[in-house]
C-alpha cells in the first residue's frame, strides 16, 4: 500500500538523518538475528561441557574463550540472546497492555478509576523496584513466566503515569469533542482517538524499558532468582564468571556482560529514533 511505502521512505529518511539511530537500529537487527538464528549457527553446543578445555582464554578456536566446564562462551552468549530478548519483549508487551490501557482510562475518565489506578501505581513505587521483583519471583516461583510478570509489574507505574498524563491533556482537545459529535462513545474515543495519539510516547517508553527489562531479568538470574543453570543466560553467566575474575579469567564474565550492555545501550538509543518515525507531524 502507498501508506506503507511512505512510512518506509520516512523511516529511511530518519535513519539517514540520525547516524546514531541508524547504528542503534543496526545493532537491534543484529540482536534480533542472533535471537532467531543463534542456536542453529553457533559453532559449539552451548551445553556441552569438555573439562579438558576448561578456562581457556579467547583464541581463534574459542572467540570468547571457555568457562570452568569447558563450554564455548561465544556460543552461549549468542544462544542466550533469544531467552533474554523474549523475557524483555514479553514483559514490555504485558506492561504496555496493562499500564498503557489503565493509565489512559485513568486520565480520560478521572474520578474513581483515576484514584484506583494511581494508588496502585503509588503502592508499587513505594518499594525498591528490584527488591519487589525479587519478592514476586521468590513468592510465585522460579520460572520464566514469573520473571516476565515481575518485570511487567515493576514497570507498571511508569506506563500508567505517562499514559494518564497524556490522556488527561487530550481529553479536552477539540478533536475529542468532534469525535463525540460524530457519534463516538467513551470506549471508542479512548481506543480510536486517544490511544493512537499517545502510542508514539508509549513506544519511546517501551524502548527505554526494554533495556531495563533485560537488566532486570539478568539481575534476577544473577542472584539466583531467575533462569536456572545450565541454561545459557547473560545474568547467570556473569554470576558464574564473577568468581573467576579474581584469578584472572576475565572473559567468562566480560563477554556476557558486554552483550548485556550493548543490548541495553541499543534499546535506549532506539527510543529517540522510534519517536521520530512514528510521529506523523514529522512526516512530510
Amino acid at each position: 500500500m502507498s501508506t506503507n511505502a511512505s512510512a518506509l521512505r520516512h523511516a529511511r529518511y530518519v535513519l539517514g538523518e540520525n547516524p546514531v539511530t541508524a547504528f542503534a537500529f543496526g545493532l537491534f537487527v543484529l540482536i534480533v538475528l542472533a535471537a532467531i538464528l543463534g542456536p542453529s549457527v553457533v559453532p559449539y553446543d552451548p551445553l556441552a561441557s569438555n573439562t579438558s578445555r576448561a578456562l581457556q582464554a579467547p583464541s581463534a578456536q574459542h572467540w570468547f574463550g571457555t568457562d570452568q566446564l569447558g563450554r564455548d562462551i561465544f556460543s552461549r552468549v549468542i544462544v542466550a540472546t533469544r531467552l533474554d530478548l523474549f523475557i524483555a519483549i514479553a514483559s514490555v508487551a504485558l506492561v504496555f497492555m496493562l499500564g498503557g490501557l489503565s493509565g489512559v482510562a485513568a486520565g480520560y475518565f478521572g474520578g474513581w478509576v483515576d484514584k484506583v489506578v494511581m494508588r496502585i501505581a503509588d503502592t508499587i513505587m513505594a518499594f525498591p523496584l528490584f527488591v519487589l521483583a525479587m519478592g514476586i519471583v521468590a513468592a510465585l516461583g522460579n520460572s520464566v513466566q514469573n520473571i516476565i510478570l515481575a518485570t511487567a509489574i515493576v514497570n507498571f507505574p511508569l506506563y500508567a503515569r505517562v499514559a494518564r498524563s497524556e490522556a488527561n491533556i487530550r481529553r479536552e482537545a477539540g478533536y475529542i469533542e468532534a469525535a463525540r459529535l460524530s457519534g463516538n462513545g467513551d470506549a471508542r474515543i479512548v481506543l480510536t482517538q486517544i490511544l493512537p495519539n499517545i502510542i508514539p510516547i508509549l513506544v519511546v517508553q517501551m524502548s527505554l524499558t526494554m533495556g531495563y527489562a533485560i537488566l532486570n531479568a539478568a539481575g534476577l538470574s544473577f542472584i539466583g532468582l531467575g533462569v536456572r543453570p545450565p541454561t545459557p543466560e547473560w545474568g547467570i553467566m556473569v554470576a558464574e564468571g564473577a568468581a573467576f575474575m579474581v584469578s584472572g579469567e576475565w572473559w567468562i564474565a566480560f563477554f556476557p556482560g558486554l552483550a548485556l550492555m550493548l543490548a541495553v545501550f541499543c534499546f535506549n538509543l532506539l527510543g529517540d529514533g522510534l519517536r521520530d518515525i512514528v510521529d506523523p507531524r514529522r512526516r512530510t
Partner: protein
Amino acid sequence: MKPEPLLDVAELSKRYALQPSGSPIARAIRRLRHGPEAVPKLHAVDDVSFTIGRGETVGLVGESGCGKSTLVRLIARLIDGNEGSIRLGASELTHIPAKRFASVDERVKIQMVFQDAGESINPRYTASDAISDPLRRLRGLSGDALRSKVEEAATRCGLPLELLSRYPHQLSGGQRARVGIARAIAVEPELLILDEPTAALDVSVQVVILQLLEKLKVELGMSYLFVSHDLNVVRLLCDRVLVMYLGKIVESGPAREVFANPAHPYTRALVDAVPDAKRPPSGRVRLSGEIASPIDPDPNTCRFVGRCPKAESLCRQAMPRLQPVRPGHQAACHFSSSGPQT
C-alpha cells in the same frame, strides 16, 4: 401563528461546583461546627431562554468568559446542564444524558464547527478520515457510498479532492476550516453551531469561509447558531442576535435593530468598541471597572452594575429581567425603554 421553532431553549442553567477552600481536615472540623457547608458554585450559564427558527441564523456575542462556549456545548449536548430544557423540533433533549447522547438519533441533527479547526481534527486522521467519521458512525455508511458522500461534502465546501489524503498539519488554515465544515455538514444536520469558525483565520480567508457558510445554509436548509467576537460579521450574517453577559442573555432582537439601537448599556458599549473611522471617538460608551465574579453572584443585583454608566441603587436591589423594548427586541435593563420599570 408563529411557526414552530427548530430549537427552543428554556431556563437553561449550568453551574460548576468549586472545591471549597482548606484541607479535608479543616473542612471536616468546619462541617462539625457549622453544619453542612455551602459549596461555592460558578454560574456559567444562568437561566437562559431563546429560540432558533428553521432556516434562521442567530448570532451569540459576548466577551471571553461570559459563558458562550458553555452554552453552545450544552446545546450540542456535549455537557449536561443543571436545569432547563432544550427542545429540538418535537423532542426534548435534556432527558438523555450527554454521556449517552452519542448513540441516539438526535445526535445527527446537531453538529458543530469548532473555533480552531487545526485542533479539532485528530492529528493522525487525514482530511478524508475526519469527514468519514460522522458519516460512518451516524449514517452507517461504508465503502463506495461513504467515499462518494465524503467527496460530495468536500466539493460542497470547496476542498479539492486531492487534499483529502492529507494530514491536518499539511493543510493551510483555510483548508482546515473547510475540512471542519465539511465534517459537520456531511451528515446534513438541522442545526449547525458555529463556534467562532473564523477567529483563527486571516481576514482574506475569513470572508471566503463566511460566504461558504452562507451558501451551505441555503443549499442544505440548516439553521445556524453563530458565536462570534466580530460584531461586523454578526451584523452581516445573522437574522437575530443574542448578547450575553456573565451567563445571562442581556439583549436579544433582530441583528440590524440591536446594533442600530442597542437597548442595553453593555450592547451599547460593545457596538461603540467596534473601530469606525467615520465616527468621532467622543460620545462613545467606554467600559471601566472589572467584570464581576461569576462565583455565587447576588441574585438580586444586576450582573453589569459594577461597569454600567447608568447604574443606580435600583440596579443593586433587583435583577432586571428581559423586557420587550420593541416588537421582537428584548433587553434586561431597568432603563432600557424610557425610565425605570416599576
